[in-house]
């Protein structure tokens, strides 16, 4: 073994552990592929704790293996009575004190990280977003910007974005593994805060992590991280979006009318008034339909006709419109593209 490896063995071990683990999972999904301040901080904490634990495990297993091989009763030993040892004070002290030291090594960075991640916005100029969860979708209201959207959360790369979390119904939990950890969204006054700070551009997978009903596993969302310039562009595009704008094609115009008669009572387009269902201002740019399906016309139609078949337990009524009308509404929704900045920009 080379000399430098002996010297830096601990670092080397940590490094290789980190290397092995980062082979796990898919980019933009896995907590083991951190691309955000929070996720990186937590990843380092994980690596530290795993290293300590592996050390403990090796010690235990070394004694364990030795004992089981050395002290198996051998043939002809059936009458042998071993010495009845009562115990050993020195050993007891050793295996009390060493774990305490190891735990202190872990406790200090843990507490530091807890306080670090609890930072709240102190500046009016910060980007602040109110996140509201509901069965089984996410609403994002950009404080002070008069922008509302749902399912796709746009944030700029490299900036701290402060989230205030609450729930419209049951408890959910907001989790974007590759950017930061998670926090629950509670109904009522128990509002929580967290921040996101992405270090790379991209479209990140977000999910609900607290059992919230039948479609808990389908309550996915996306975080779209774009460059700060693109983010500025997106904000102004969204602010300038005209909810009343007439679509270009005949079919879409008819779709708009059907939408206004059947859907508008729940789904808002534009930031006001707020609906009880997902905001659809930039529906045409969505990465997914309902968080899980490809954004094709057929899928949108299928969703409009029978949403409960796709996401069991959700509150959107089925068969409000017939199949032909659903097609027109889909056509209308798909052309709602107020911004040049889309998930494709996040590369």
């Amino acid at each position: 073994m080379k000399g430098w490896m002996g010297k830096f063995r601990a670092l080397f071990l940590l490094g290789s552990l980190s290397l092995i683990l980062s082979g796990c999972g898919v980019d933009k999904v896995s907590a083991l592929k951190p691309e955000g301040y929070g996720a990186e901080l937590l990843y380092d904490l994980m690596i530290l704790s795993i290293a300590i634990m592996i050390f403990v495990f090796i010690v235990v297993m070394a004694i364990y293996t030795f004992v089981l091989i050395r002290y198996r009763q051998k043939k002809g030993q059936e009458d042998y009575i071993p010495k009845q040892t009562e115990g050993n004070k020195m050993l007891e002290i050793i295996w009390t004190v060493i774990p305490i030291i190891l735990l202190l090594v872990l406790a200090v960075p843990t507490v530091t990280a807890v306080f670090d991640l609890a930072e709240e916005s102190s500046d009016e100029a910060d980007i602040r977003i109110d996140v509201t969860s509901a069965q089984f979708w996410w609403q994002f209201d950009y404080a002070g910007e008069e922008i509302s959207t749902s399912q796709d959360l746009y944030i700029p790369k490299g900036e701290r974005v402060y989230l205030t979390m609450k729930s419209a119904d049951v408890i959910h939990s907001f989790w974007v593994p590759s950017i930061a950890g998670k926090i629950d969204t509670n109904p009522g006054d128990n509002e929580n805060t967290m921040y996101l700070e992405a270090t790379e551009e991209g479209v990140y997978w977000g999910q609900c992590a607290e059992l919230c009903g039948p479609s808990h596993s389908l309550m996915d969302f996306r975080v779209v991280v774009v460059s700060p310039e693109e983010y500025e562009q997106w904000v102004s595009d969204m602010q300038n979006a005209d909810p009343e704008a007439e679509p270009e094609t005949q079919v879409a115009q008819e779709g708009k009318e059907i939408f206004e008669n059947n859907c508008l009572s729940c789904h808002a387009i534009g930031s006001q008034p707020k609906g009880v269902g997902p905001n659809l201002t930039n529906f045409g740019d969505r990465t997914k339909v309902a968080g899980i399906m490809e954004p094709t016309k057929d899928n949108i139609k299928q969703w409009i006709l029978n949403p409960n078949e796709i996401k069991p337990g959700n509150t959107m009524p089925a068969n409000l419109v017939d199949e032909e009308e659903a097609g027109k509404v889909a056509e209308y929704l798909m052309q709602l593209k107020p911004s040049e900045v889309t998930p494709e920009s996040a590369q």
Partner: protein
Amino acid sequence: MSTAVAQKKGFGAFMWDYLTTVDHKKIAHLYLVAGGLFFLLGGLEAMIIRIQLIKPDNEFISAGLYNEMITMHGTTMIFLAAMPLLFALMNAVVPLQIGARDVAFPFLNSLGFWLFFFGGVILNCSWFMGGAPDAGWTAYAPLSTTSPSHGVDFYVMGLQISGAGTLIGGINFLVTIVNMRAPGMSYMRMPLFTWTIFVTSTLILFAFPALTVGLFLMMFDRMFGSVFFDVAAGGNVIIWEHLFWIFGHPEVYILILPVFGVFSEVFATFSKKRLFGYSAMVFATVLIGFLGFMVWAHHMFTTGMGPVANSIFAVTTMAIAVPTGIKIFNWLFTMWGGAIRMTTAMLWSVAFIPTFTIGGMTGVMLAAAAADYQYHDTYFVVAHFHYVIVGGVVFGIFAALHYWWPKMFGKVLNEKLGKWAFWPFFIGFHLTFFIQHFLGLMGMPRRYWKFLDGQGLETGNLISTIGAFFMALGVIIFVWNIIYTHMKEPKASADPFDGRTLEWSIPSPPPFYNFKQTPLVRGLDALWIEKSEGKKAMTPAEPLGDIHMPYGSIIPFVMSLGLFIAGFGFIYQVDNPVWLSLVFIGMGITLGSMFVRSVKDDLGYHIHKEDLEKGDGQL
């Protein structure tokens, strides 16, 4: 063996015997059979969950049914399988280990069992009566309080009734261990299993009332229009989380401490050595029990308690690793220098050490509150608690059953079949759950009905499901072993494993009065001391005399049946007040039985000295 008795007495008399028994050994059989059946049921639910997750986007069962499965799997395994199986061991062993003729309150012992049993039956009736509970075994409000079916009502009533049984059982063992130890058995001479049951009973006494309160609040919210958990009316949903975990965390130690006791007995016996560091082990047990009440909020790091609370609970949680570590090392050093016999009981115990060490390590990782923002409610947590509950509690129960089966039933479980059951279960266990650590970190939250393609979770889930089938195979072989043993194996001697504690000083199974004469205890490992001085039996602490025994009674059964009936009344009176009549009928039966019990003298009877001298004491 009980079946022999049954053949003599006929099936009706056999059933009546068990329905009315107040004998701790027969109540142990009842707990074992009921807990075993619920264990198989919970296992079946687990298999359905794993089949659903065998591939991405699977449609094996519907989303709603899946949530019912996970809820019932968790609730059944914790409350209706693990708890009663441990109560079976407590009942079978503790009175014998302390040299007592029964528990302090035999009547209450029977009542505790029947309450648990009927509570469990109520809960499972939900499957046939409009749907099982579907809000997870933790039943977080408001998902639970607003769940539209009656499922959660069944959860509330079932757990309330069986919880009362558990509380009664806990108090009973506390009193038994304090008051009924044989002469000479000071606290620091109690076998470690008895010590752990002592601490466990204390935990039950303090932890279960929190659950009782929580369940009452939820019951009133769901059935009588209160708004404790309704935020629109000023309620607060976080209160449920606190109440549940103030109970729920000590519950984990209620489950694990008894098996720590089991392993301590098994390691000592099959290494032919005194338990290493006995007083440190006792200290560690008490400390774990105490710290167990200080850490509940580590289940709530992502609830939003703020950095101060999160830090405090992170540090207290880490502290628990210290006494647990003390235990692991003391077990290793119990084997050190011993003469290790790899019986099946020992095999399960030996397998426990690495498994539980991994579970403990991931526990410390979870305790790092900030990192828990990533782990929380993912498969990492699922992997962690299955490593401690299956790798700890279930391995421990298997070890205990192999170890004490002769004392409970008079036959040693077949060793070869025992090992054949062990290997598929052990390998299957690690296949199922080790990979789940990585699934969680790779972004798979728990309680997911389906996972989608393209998240890199396919292989891990497939491996996990394959492992589950191996575990099922192990359980099937174990059940076969029980049947095989009772058909083919010879009767066991009083002390088949060269035991160290008092239960091995009397026949297997013991006579119904346990000890003809109360033994005199001269130190830790009382029987071992006598044996090492060349004696064949314990020195009696009293001359042969009449033994006072309690009569059996059907009242505990009837009392519990009343609550069972009232339970349905409570659940359905929401739909139609006519159902309130069931509440009155049921409560009438229960209160009536309590009245009868109070006014009717039941002084018990004596076994006379002359009959005891005749030898077998059969009357």
